[in-house]
């Protein structure tokens, strides 16, 4: 070994050994450098081979009963709004969204100060392609922050929806097309937010959907992922 400090950040990120500032730096690179992002994906694929060697352990039978009950058909699922094709991006890509919306200093390991507490992130993938729009849920401030989208033609509005496990979209309000939007959540909306919920953006008449349901085409959507 001659090189004292090989730059292995892509592999380190895929392996999961980074934390704090180092991890934040690596996530920033995922966002800024497509070649680096591909490298992270390649390492993930390499390491995935090791799953084969993971020792198995049979869970108790009660887990299967609980899981099957958890998906019981009495819950209305995504049929309500079939137009949405949810694409879950690689976790790194989703996490990278955090970087846009948080100053670097806030990414350090959890502190007890009254700073933001980011528990869920989503990457809203535009239906027509292009850069994803990051969204984060700050549990302490009870708000969702969404990056600028600018997907809608002039004269129309971008409306943000949350689609919880019941598949019924609820409006979270209109977004600014030119800058980041902070959406304050009501207690009713907060109750809908967990890692099974999706976020979606639709194109609506100026002022928002007149019906309380999305009326225009879906511009972007993405699944929350807990971090």
């Amino acid at each position, binding site marked *: *070994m001659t*090189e004292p*400090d*090989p730059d*292995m950040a892509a*592999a*380190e990120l895929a*392996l*999961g*050994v*980074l*934390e704090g500032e180092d991890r934040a730096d690596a996530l920033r690179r995922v966002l800024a450098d497509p070649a680096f992002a591909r490298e992270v994906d390649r390492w*993930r*694929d*390499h*390491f*995935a*081979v*090791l*799953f*084969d*060697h*993971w*020792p*198995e*352990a*049979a*869970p*108790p039978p*009660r*887990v*299967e009963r*609980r*899981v*099957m009950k*958890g*998906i019981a*058909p009495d819950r209305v*699922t*995504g049929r309500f709004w079939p137009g949405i094709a*949810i*694409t*879950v991006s690689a*976790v790194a890509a989703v996490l990278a969204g955090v970087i846009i919306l948080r100053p670097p200093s806030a990414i350090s390991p959890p502190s007890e100060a009254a700073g933001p507490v980011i528990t869920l992130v989503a990457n809203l993938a535009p239906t027509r392609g292009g850069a994803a729009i990051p969204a984060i849920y700050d549990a302490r401030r009870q708000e969702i922050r969404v990056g600028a989208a600018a997907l809608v033609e002039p004269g129309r509005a971008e409306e943000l929806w949350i689609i919880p*496990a019941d598949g019924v979209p609820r409006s979270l309000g209109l977004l600014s097309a030119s800058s980041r939007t902070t959406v304050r959540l009501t207690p009713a909306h907060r109750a809908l937010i967990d*890692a*099974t919920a999706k976020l979606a953006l639709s194109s609506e008449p100026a002022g928002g959907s007149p019906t309380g349901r999305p009326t225009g085409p879906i511009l972007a959507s993405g*699944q929350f992922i*807990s*971090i």
Partner: protein
Amino acid sequence: MGTSGDQSRSGSEGARLALTEALVATGDEDRLAFQRVYRMTSAKLFGICIRICGDAQAAEDVLHEVYLTIWKRAGSFQPGRASPISWLATIARNRAIDWRRANGARATTPLAMADNIPDGSPAADEAMIAGEADRRLHLCLDSLDAEHRNAIRTAFFNGVTYRELAEQSAVPLGTMKSWVRRGLARLKRCLEDD
């Protein structure tokens, strides 16, 4: 489904196909297919959860969440892009790591535990992920210094950070980083060497 889950273990390709088929059907909200996915994979995924969480009850809860997530996200599984078991196992590993870091859990398994995981080539009937990539990775891992290899394997199997790795093996943080980075650099050269 033409291929039954019981038969599928007789061949890695059969297992992969049966699982892919069941996972794709799960994406169409087919509950029976989802149950097949559960039965084909729950021992693997529970093994992942229990090792990373280090606590049986927590691992059960995490496993439950993992399968609910799989049910929700199966529609986004791309059969051509990822191996089904890797896709599922990645969800389980990430969820279990989330739990660990959120609960400030300390690893209950010492560093040496990674040695207990066999690191030879997988037996054909166990290999749900088959192919040249497997053999290459194992050959390359085998070529690393033992300390480097063990640190990388432990990071993967225990879901731990540099800091935890260093604490568990009682070496300075800088030493641990150096082991892992040098090991990864060498692994990369080996993997790219055709």
